């Protein structure tokens, strides 16, 4: 067909499909363009963060836990202090606000992670002190002489073990080892129709268990940042972050500096793939500069990138499908466990994203999911390309093959049969539009030399949907399983009614030297003293209960748990 363009890699533009739905009069899409930064790349002139040389640049390296889980009895830096080249040793006490959760900037979740841990560590490689020295080698040598008196605690590395009664508490903020959703439940629920009844009536009930290991993003440039003083009490920070303003906001919170005193320069990222949002190096490098008055670099070496750099988290899934003899899937039930590692980072959000994606691109009238964000004594997990979706998609598609085998259909036919059509109601209560799975299956079958039946060849995403398929289920079964006490839902950032993080105030006058120790923490504002288990969900909070930073609304609408 004339509208197909194919290159050596087999990539093909099928413009014959949905031709009437697309405007082909586009200036950029479909055309070869040169990326604007490529000349810098081929000449070696692109300014990565590590390419900002400062005279007198100091190097920061962390002292890390050799244990999965341990209490810190004492940190003795006396020998390290005397090592050649050592300028300063930083511990948690030097961090103005040493507790944070990344998504607090979007008012989602409770502060649960220190920059440098003081009381205990909950994963191997967790930093407890940072040595600032004149050379990297000196910083390395000095970290080896810091003596930490550990009291090793029992640890848990498996998501299901972590949820059992009596499991060690990994993360004190969530004593049950699970993130708390909507201030109420230890998991995210998806309820659509009545799965148990549909399973009872189905011709086949097909179960499966699937899991995925953590996956390291492994960018060739390791994570890091360089900070230096500017004039007027400002700090410049060159960083490899993928999320410049996110990192700026995080540094502002941890260091109690108004964002106007932070000048972040980034945008040239040596590969991120999701692994460069965690904003660890920026506050550390700036803190180093505040404490020493000299430019500082915090950078992971490759081993740290692999060991303590947050990966795509592991997932485990249990699926149960109810299927009729003709291959129609009438019920699908999920129990999913996301391994968040020791702290929340972005896994809480991955779960929300995931719940919005279930049951995959199929029209299934009864769907039920319990998805847990679980804390274990493993490296915290974070973002990576499609996180929240990738693992469960693997589970769903592997399960589809199993279903096809059970009912005697070709896997491609099973998918065409069950695929969303335009106008179908999805489990998260939106109508499907611009569907294309049927066509993808048809093209894939053709490429694979697979002969589809005439029915399957005639199928289209544009026909067969809507009508009764557009309707919400007559009855949706709900439950209160997994209810937890002591958390409130009005604002995510509250547990037991206390604000999780102190309000951000500019305590330092411009140019003032940095605090040598933790300043008196601003008293928590008793804005919302009582837990409010019955509070409406986020979007109707009165202004006084709004988080200090806006963004919660946008996030809610993004993740689709806002009330409609």
């Amino acid at each position, binding site marked *: 067909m004339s509208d197909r363009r194919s290159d*050596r*890699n087999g990539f093909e533009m099928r413009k014959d499909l949905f031709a009437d739905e697309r405007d082909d009069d586009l200036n950029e899409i479909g055309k070869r363009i*040169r*990326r604007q*930064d*490529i*000349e*810098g*790349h*081929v*000449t*070696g*002139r*692109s300014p*990565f963060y*590590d*390419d900002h*040389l400062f005279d007198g640049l100091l190097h920061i390296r962390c002292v890390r836990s050799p244990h999965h889980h341990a209490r810190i009895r004492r940190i003795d830096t006396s020998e390290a202090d005397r090592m050649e080249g050592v300028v300063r040793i930083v511990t948690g006490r030097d961090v103005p606000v040493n507790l944070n959760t990344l998504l607090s900037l979007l008012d989602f979740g409770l502060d649960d992670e220190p920059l440098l841990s003081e009381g205990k560590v909950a994963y191997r490689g967790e930093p407890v002190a940072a040595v600032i020295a004149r*050379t990297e*080698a000196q910083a390395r040598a000095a970290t080896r002489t810091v003596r930490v008196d550990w009291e090793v605690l029992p640890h848990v590395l498996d998501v299901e073990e972590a949820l059992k009664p009596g499991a060690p508490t990994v993360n004190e903020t969530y004593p049950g080892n699970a993130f708390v959703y909507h201030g109420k439940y230890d998991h995210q629920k998806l309820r659509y129709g009545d799965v148990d009844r549909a399973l009872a009536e189905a011709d086949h009930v097909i179960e499966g268990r699937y899991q995925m290991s953590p996956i390291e*993003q*492994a*960018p*060739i*440039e*390791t994570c890091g940042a360089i900070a230096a003083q500017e004039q007027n009490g400002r700090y410049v920070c060159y960083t490899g972050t993928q999320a410049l303003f996110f990192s700026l906001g995080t540094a502002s919170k941890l260091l109690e500096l108004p964002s106007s005193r932070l000048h972040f320069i980034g945008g*040239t*990222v*040596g*590969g*991120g*793939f999701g692994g460069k949002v965690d904003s660890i190096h920026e506050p550390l490098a700036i803190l180093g500069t505040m404490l020493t008055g000299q430019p500082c670099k915090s950078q992971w*070496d*490759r081993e740290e990138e692999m060991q303590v750099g947050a990966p795509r988290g592991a997932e485990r899934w249990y699926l149960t499908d109810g299927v009729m003899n003709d291959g129609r899937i009438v019920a699908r039930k999920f129990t999913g466990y996301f391994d968040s590692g020791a702290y929340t980072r972005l896994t809480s959000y991955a779960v929300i994203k995931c719940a919005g994606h279930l049951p995959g691109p199929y029209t299934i009238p009864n769907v039920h999911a319990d998805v847990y964000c679980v804390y274990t004594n493993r490296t915290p997990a974070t973002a990576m390309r499609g996180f929240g979706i990738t693992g469960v998609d693997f589970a769903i598609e592997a399960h589809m093959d199993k279903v096809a085998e059970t009912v005697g259909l070709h896997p491609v036919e099973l998918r065409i049969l069950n695929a969303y059509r335009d106008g179908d109601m999805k489990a998260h209560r939106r109508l499907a539009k611009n569907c294309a799975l049927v066509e993808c299956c048809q093209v894939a079958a053709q490429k694979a030399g697979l002969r589809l039946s005439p029915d399957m060849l005639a199928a289209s995403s544009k026909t067969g949907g809507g009508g009764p398929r557009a309707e919400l289920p007559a009855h949706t079964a709900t439950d209160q399983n997994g209810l937890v006490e002591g958390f409130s839902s009005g604002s995510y950032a509250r547990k037991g009614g206390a604000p999780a993080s102190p309000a951000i105030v500019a305590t330092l006058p411009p140019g003032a030297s940095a605090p040598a120790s933790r300043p008196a923490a601003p008293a928590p504002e008793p804005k919302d003293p009582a837990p409010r288990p019955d509070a409406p969900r986020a979007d109707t909070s009165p202004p006084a209960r709004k988080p200090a930073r806006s963004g919660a609304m946008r996030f809610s609408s993004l993740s689709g748990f806002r009330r409609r």
Partner: protein
Amino acid sequence: MTKIPVTLTHNGAERAAFADPGQNLLDFIRRGLGDLSPKYGCGQGSCGACTVTIDGETRLACLTLAETVEGCDVRTAAGLGQGATLDPLQQAFMDHFAAQCGYCTPGMLVSARALLDRNPNPTREEVVEAISGNLCRCTGYDPIIDAILSLAGRKASA
């Protein structure tokens, strides 16, 4: 700390600078000579982002002791091309979208240039072999291989 004077030819120019004991060539080129084109990706020989040539052979700067290049001819990606004129290889990388984040690119270019200088008409397999010490996490390698192959059969750069 005692400093070790090192004299070398760097991208065609006579240079001298001091190295620290135990300092690797990557750090020396970047901080001592101010040429930031070789990159740190691992410090373990695994990624190839620090690839340079020493007396015409590709080497890993991170695994080379700085003081051992005394009197050597060291070349990096910054030395490709002449003045404002890019090396045809750099141009081919631009034309083929052979760099995405660009972090592996300088090392990749050095390996590719060394291949073409030695073997101006490589096969696809020879190209793959020649860049097998350079990891790229972004491109999937195909655009890079295509860029290098687009020069196969052409005369080596001016």
